[in-house]
């Protein structure tokens, strides 16, 4: 039981720190400005090309095959340098690695990991949110392809994406969880329209909706077998709930460092309550860092696709929203006249208890699948 670096880990940390000193693009927080999204793709490629992305993933998909705990080192160093977090796409990687066939894995994963091909995830629909399995997007076979018709929403990065991992109904005649399949669908084709959605903090680049009207996917671009879509979706969302997979420790630690700097920069302007809120943000972010060390260490025994992601999602939500409340305290000082980054950070924090499965859904899962309470 040791939180300290091994000699190999320490050498890696030093190399990363030196690289970051020269290569930090100093982007704004993703939750506060569209400019972040302009810089995100170059950042992904730079991090990958320098050998600091996909550390624990297999070498055949562009990873480094290192122990999972290296991801924790990356997050700590990114936060310490004030650099952007690592791109959050591990959940797509895990879903495709587990369910995709050899051919799908070889064709799609290297581009996803290297950042040369951009991906979004088409799961939620206007009438299928928490009840995802009731989704209505259809994929109908036609020769050696499928024709896709439907409406996806809350689709992060839809404006940038080359590919969309679409969950669609291929068999309407079986129970709802069993009739779903997943497809890799090219975004630049007729029959796909993508519209950005403006969030409550004014950001327009993060998520959107996608209309499929006769879009086409090759049958060979199905990820997993026909009817395996629900199981793939559950793998994807379980990892989408893990801060260790998302790299969010870096996000929160960086935000907390900014809050601390803000307090120190203007002593006397802040109330005791502001200080207390920032102190709680420090405590919460540190908790998550240590919790992720624990989870990534557990992965040394092999990856789990179980319900513990729901626990992590609820912990992560507490952190994001504690940071948000502390940021709101910083924001109040501008007199509410102009929208500032602190206010945007606060407003964005409300998303964490909704996206990737609401906190209420996570609590259902913790209660029934971990605590063993009876299903209602």
């Amino acid at each position, binding site marked *: 039981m040791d939180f300290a670096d091994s000699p190999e880990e320490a050498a890696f940390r030093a190399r990363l720190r030196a690289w970051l000193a020269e290569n930090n693009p100093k982007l704004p927080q993703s939750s506060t400005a569209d400019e972040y999204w302009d810089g995100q793709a170059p950042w992904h490629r730079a991090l990958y090309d320098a050998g600091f992305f996909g550390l624990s993933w297999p070498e055949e998909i562009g990873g480094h095959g290192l122990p999972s705990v290296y991801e924790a080192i990356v997050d700590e160093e990114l936060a310490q340098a004030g650099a952007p977090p690592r791109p959050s796409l591990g959940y797509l990687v895990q879903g495709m690695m587990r369910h995709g066939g050899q051919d799908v894995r070889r064709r799609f994963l290297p581009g996803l990991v290297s950042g040369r091909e951009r991906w979004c995830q088409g799961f939620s629909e206007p009438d299928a949110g928490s009840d995802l399995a009731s989704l209505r997007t259809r994929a109908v076979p036609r020769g050696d392809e499928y024709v896709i018709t439907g409406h996806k929403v809350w689709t992060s990065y839809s404006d940038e994406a080359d590919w969309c991992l679409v969950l669609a109904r291929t068999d309407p005649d079986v129970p709802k969880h069993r009739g779903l399949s997943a497809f890799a669908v090219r975004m630049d084709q007729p029959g796909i329209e993508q519209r950005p959605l403006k969030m409550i903090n004014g950001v327009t680049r993060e998520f959107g909706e996608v209309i499929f009207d006769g879009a086409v996917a090759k049958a060979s671009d199905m990820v997993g077998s026909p009817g395996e879509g629900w199981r793939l979706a559950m793998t994807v969302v379980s990892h989408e709930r893990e801060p260790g997979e998302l790299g969010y420790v870096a996000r929160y630690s960086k935000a907390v460092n900014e809050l601390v700097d803000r307090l120190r920069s203007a002593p006397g302007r802040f109330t005791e309550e502001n200080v207390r809120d920032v102190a709680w943000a420090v405590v919460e972010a540190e*908790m998550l860092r240590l919790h992720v060390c624990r989870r990534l260490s557990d992965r040394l025994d092999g990856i789990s696709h179980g319900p513990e992601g729901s626990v992590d999602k609820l912990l992560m939500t507490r952190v994001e929203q504690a940071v948000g409340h502390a940021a709101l305290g910083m924001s109040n000082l501008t007199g509410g006249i102009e929208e500032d980054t602190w206010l945007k950070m606060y407003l964005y924090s409300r998303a964490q208890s909704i996206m990737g499965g609401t906190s209420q859904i996570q609590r*259902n899962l913790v*209660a029934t699948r971990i605590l063993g309470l009876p299903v209602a």
Partner: protein
Amino acid sequence: MDVRLSAEQQALREAAARLVDDHAPGSVAELDDAARTARLEAALTGSGWRELRAPEDEGRPLASAVETAIVAEELGRGPADASFLGPTLATELRRRAGAEPATALETVLLRPDLSGLVVVEDEQTRCSGVAIDARGVASALALVRTGHGYDLVGVPVAGASPGRDLTRPAAMVEGAAPERLPGAGRRLLTAEDIEAWSAFTLALTCADLVGTMRGAVDLAREYASVRRQYGKAIGSFQSVQHMLADAFVSIEGSSSVTRHAAWAADTLPPGEALAAAAVAKAYCARAAREVCETAIQVHGGIGMTWECLAHIHLRRALLSTQVLGDVGANLARVVAHRKIGGVHDGLR
């Protein structure tokens, strides 16, 4: 980095869990069962776990703070009504001072608000304070300030009585004459020693809180599975499920910060270890009260009765919370460590 528990540490946890499952009270009435408490006391004495922080070669402790925290957590889960925290903290002080092991069970003497060790200015000053976790204890350690550091002194302890925590009675000490410890070769404790001891103490109280939370949630989960209303187990209702899910999530976060604080206590410089411990204690103490309150709420009216074990867990949490500083005191340590106090020093 690899923060998994080792096979030996897992085995220690299982052994401690067995001891607790065999001998801890299964009901409030069993708190008064003298035969059972004697069996628990004998089993704990036999385990040798009160000596985990006694010195082996070169003055290092027999076992790390991580292992000590594992035992503390299981005893908290019990809840085990035998002294462990107090004797362990006294042993830790003796080892740091190079003092001979105590000949009878010993604890520490804390200020009345339990925020720290009693320190007197000279050996002529009489000591007052609270000897915590004093079941079966004959003496308590305090500090006397000297020109070059702190020396250990002992005061006699008699007549422990249950206070807020019914599993760990405490004894008031009023105006006791401090006695120098016998034996040569002892060294004075530095301010850094006290800092390191405080970090260790906070980590152990966190472990006790994590165990207490586990015990409280286990109790509430069992009750929610058998208690029926509207023709169904109340544990099938989302409102009840969500309370218990949130409680479980709090335990998981608490467990992660506690593991780090325990590791830090033996590994990081004292100032850093204390900062890690303060983060953990603020987090665990805030969580523990809420989790234990949830356990009472899930029991409904039964939770308000003396016979329900839920308040035994809550009371134990309240005591562990107070030892070496509650939520606010430890948040203030975080503020000081991150230097964000500004001109407002109200939090310090």
